[in-house]
């Protein structure tokens, strides 16, 4: 299956891109995708514990199982206000 991953805020500086598309085996979890992104963009490694993860417009846990066509967002702690 194919999933789009969007990066926000300084994660864009760390990855050098705003989004990427990746192929994953069926049943891949959000946590596994995050690990794959850290392997693909090593500068993300230092942000592991401070990474927020959403699928579509909702936050999800690492054990959330992804579906084909999902749009995943990875970003640092939010700072509105």
């Amino acid at each position, binding site marked *: 299956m194919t999933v789009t991953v969007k990066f926000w*805020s300084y994660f864009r500086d760390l990855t050098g891109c705003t989004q990427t598309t990746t192929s994953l085996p069926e049943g891949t979890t959000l946590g596994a995708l995050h690990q794959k992104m850290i392997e693909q963009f090593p500068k993300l490694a230092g942000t592991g514990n401070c990474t*927020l993860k959403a699928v*579509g*417009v909702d936050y999800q846990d690492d054990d959330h199982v992804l579906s084909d066509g999902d749009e995943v967002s990875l970003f640092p702690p*939010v700072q*509105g*206000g």
Partner: protein
Amino acid sequence: MKREITLTRRPITTAAQDMGSDMGAVVTFHGVVRDKEDATPISAIDYEANELMARHQFGLIFDALEQEWPLESVRLIHRLGVVPVNEPSLWVEVIAPHRAEAFAACQHLINEMKKKVPIWKHPVA
């Protein structure tokens, strides 16, 4: 509960609104860009948002406010893009029967926003 969620790249403007005659409290909050960020002087903050998700997350927070307190109206404006020092980036207004719930709801909204709504700051030197 009346609700308005506005994300805008223009300066924040607000207008008072009519309110029900059984409402006794209006609390407003302006969050204003300060001239320093972590002790470094700045001229502005450039706000970035994941707008679709931000609107959805604000909506979830508004749902929770409506569940918890008997509010008549909650309105929020968050400015995006470059906001100069001394200008507001955030405006919130809560109308409720009594002041305790208006203050509680207004603060809860801002606290939850700062945990969940995907907006980020980029200081401008």
